[in-house]
């Protein structure tokens, strides 16, 4: 029941809710950043140092900036029109609530079976490196190919448009 | 290869950085209020009126001929002629300026007034710290403020001043010689005809 956990998770959830409900899209992007930072701290709380810093580096360093760039390039930052709901917004909320109830119930139901106190595993970078290069070397190569394809794809999609309407 | 020019440029600035501590050639900055660069002898800022002897109004060379007032491109000189006369350095009776104002906010120190002045009465000063906070009156110098002694003129422009003095002395000698020559003739002329043109 450590206080920092509650603090950080409250911050994360607040960031997430703000990201979903704010009118101005750019404020949503910044709220998303707060949520991602909160999740990174949660990872650090779970002694997963590498993932925590990777999360900060990848998400806050790149994805958040990407979202902000997208918001600016599509000029949706300035248009302060009321938070338009999709036509079927009510159904969406209902589905979300149902999923939360189902997940929440399943967690609470199996609460007694879950191991609660285990010693903090001391994970060193050495182990992660060996794991990545050992059993997980194939997924690593696949992800590398995927990332290159994604970069090239994104550039072509944007570039293609620019060339056509010139 | 890439970066060669940049390295050469960096070497240059390093040389200048070191040089500024060492060579007089490079560090030419002067800490102005404490240290001052010697003012060039020929430099000119604003005009001033020269007077001989000690008393500034009596010895003033200016005879209010207003040539400089006409010739001044920005028209910054204002002269009022006097009714009576006073003797100049040769002894001849000459007018003198009752008012001689120069508006140094208008004057562009072009020194044409010095060139056209036949009486060597106006010269260029080298004092340049004339800042005042009074925009109008402060920069309008009257003849009292403009008048400076010949010794001061010698102190700021020594060579030019000595040439001017040489010329004036030679003129004085010529004038006295003429006066001496004219004196006996004048003396001879009165006994002969009573009238005569004088």
């Amino acid at each position, binding site marked *: 029941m450590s206080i920092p956990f509650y603090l950080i998770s409250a911050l994360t959830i607040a960031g997430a809710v703000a990201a979903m409900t704010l009118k101005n899209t750019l404020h949503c992007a910044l709220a998303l950043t707060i949520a991602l930072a909160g999740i990174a701290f949660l990872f650090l709380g779970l002694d997963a140092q590498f993932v925590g810093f990777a999360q900060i580096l990848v998400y806050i360093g790149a994805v958040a900036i990407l979202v902000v760039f997208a918001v600016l390039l599509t000029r949706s930052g300035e248009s302060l029109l009321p938070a338009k709901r999709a036509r079927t917004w009510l159904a969406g909320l209902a589905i979300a609530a149902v999923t939360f109830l189902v997940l929440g119930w399943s967690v609470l139901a199996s609460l007694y079976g879950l191991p609660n106190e285990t010693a903090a595993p001391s994970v060193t970078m050495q182990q992660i490196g060996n794991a990545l290069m050992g059993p997980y070397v194939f997924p690593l190569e696949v992800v590398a190919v995927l990332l290159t394809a994604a970069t090239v794809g994104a550039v072509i999609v944007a570039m293609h448009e620019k060339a056509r309407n010139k | 290869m890439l970066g060669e020019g940049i390295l050469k440029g960096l070497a240059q600035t390093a040389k200048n950085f070191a040089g500024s501590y060492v060579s007089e050639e490079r560090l030419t*900055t002067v800490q102005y209020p404490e240290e001052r660069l010697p003012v060039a002898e020929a430099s000119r800022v604003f005009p001033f009126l020269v007077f001989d002897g000690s008393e500034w109004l009596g010895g003033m060379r200016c005879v209010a001929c207003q040539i400089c007032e006409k010739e001044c491109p920005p028209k910054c000189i204002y002269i009022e002629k006097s009714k009576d006369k006073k003797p100049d350095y040769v002894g001849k009776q000459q007018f003198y300026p009752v008012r001689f104002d120069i508006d140094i906010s208008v004057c562009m120190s072009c020194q044409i007034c010095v060139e056209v002045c036949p009486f060597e009465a106006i010269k260029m000063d080298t004092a340049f710290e004339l800042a005042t906070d009074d925009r109008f009156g402060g920069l309008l110098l009257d003849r009292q403020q403009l008048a400076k002694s010949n010794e001061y003129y010698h102190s700021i422009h020594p060579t030019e001043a000595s040439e001017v003095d040489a010329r004036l002395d030679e003129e004085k000698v010529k004038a006295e010689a003429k006066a001496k020559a004219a004196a006996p003739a004048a003396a001879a002329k009165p006994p002969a005809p009573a009238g005569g043109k004088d």
Partner: protein
Amino acid sequence: MAATFDQIFILFRNWLVHFLPPAWQPAAGALLGVIGIVAVFPGLFALTTLLERKGLGRMQNRYGPNRVGPFGLLQPVADGLKALTKEDVVPFNANGLMHLLAPLVMVVTVFMSFAVLPMGRHMELVDMDAGLLFFFAMGAATELSVFMAGWSSRNKYSILGAMRAVAQMISYEVPMLLSSVAVVMIAGSLSLPKVVAAQNHYTGIFPHWYVFTPWGFGAALMFAIAAIAETNRSPFDLPEGESEIIAGYHTEYSGFKFALFFLAEYLGMFALSGLGVTLFMGGWSAPFSFLTWIPSWIWFFAKVMLAICVFIWMRGTLPRLRQDQLMNFAWKFVLPYSLLVLLVTAFWRFLPPGWERWVVCTVILAVAYVVMGRAAFKLKRVGPRSYRYAE
């Protein structure tokens, strides 16, 4: 005696902390470390602003500031006071919260990145296993604050300036990461004190710094270029270039917030030159074996100040690159060359130690550098020209 003088700060901290009840001692120790950093580096920042202006002055054959205090030493104090007393103008329809938050986020993240730098033997604030990764994570957060600054001042030009600055920082962050990965490959660990330990031994009187190895020199060069670009300095200071119409993301800031941006820029310079010194120039290890009696933290700060002098030197000499040239240079020269350095480091690692691997690596790197340099210039038909004379 030398050892005690070397560890003087640690001993001082332990002596201070032992007054407290043992329960609080670790927390108090950490707090003292933080206070140390937050005091030392802004002090260095003040000194550097004076150093920069005097250095630039001397490079341009004029005195630097020497009116405020003896030799101008109180000039930073005067600048600080001026910054504090200046009116803090916030644009009319600016977004108040983000306008205020941007400089704070920037300064905080840069201060946090100092935590992992080993400033002396056992003098790193926290010895993190993934220290280098933490450093770059903090580096990534500053881009966001640049954007918040640009966007929140609602001025069309500062948005453009912010987008340019962020694009530049991102495209130079990739080669910076790659060149530091080369060091990790050889040192075998992400933790910076281990990297320094790996460099801290000598053959004869010469140290085993990585900058003296071929791959290390290549990586150090690319790291230096990326570091200069990352902190928007000298040839890459386009975002706030005054001769451009787009005047950079901190146009709408004045007074204390502008001083914070200024502080953040200089702290970024310290952090990156500190990292560069740790990765390539042996952190706090002495340059010659017979000099090890001098305390280690003196070496770290001497090298950082040396790096700062190089920053100032570049600023005094080089004109500015244009935005598109800047980006092309990043993606078409610095990044490929960093990848090549990674390859050569791998060779270096797996070739048997001896003169062959020196020759192989040096040849590959040198040839690649010359060829890529010439190709880059041939492509744009740029090069020294000869001139004819008429009659």
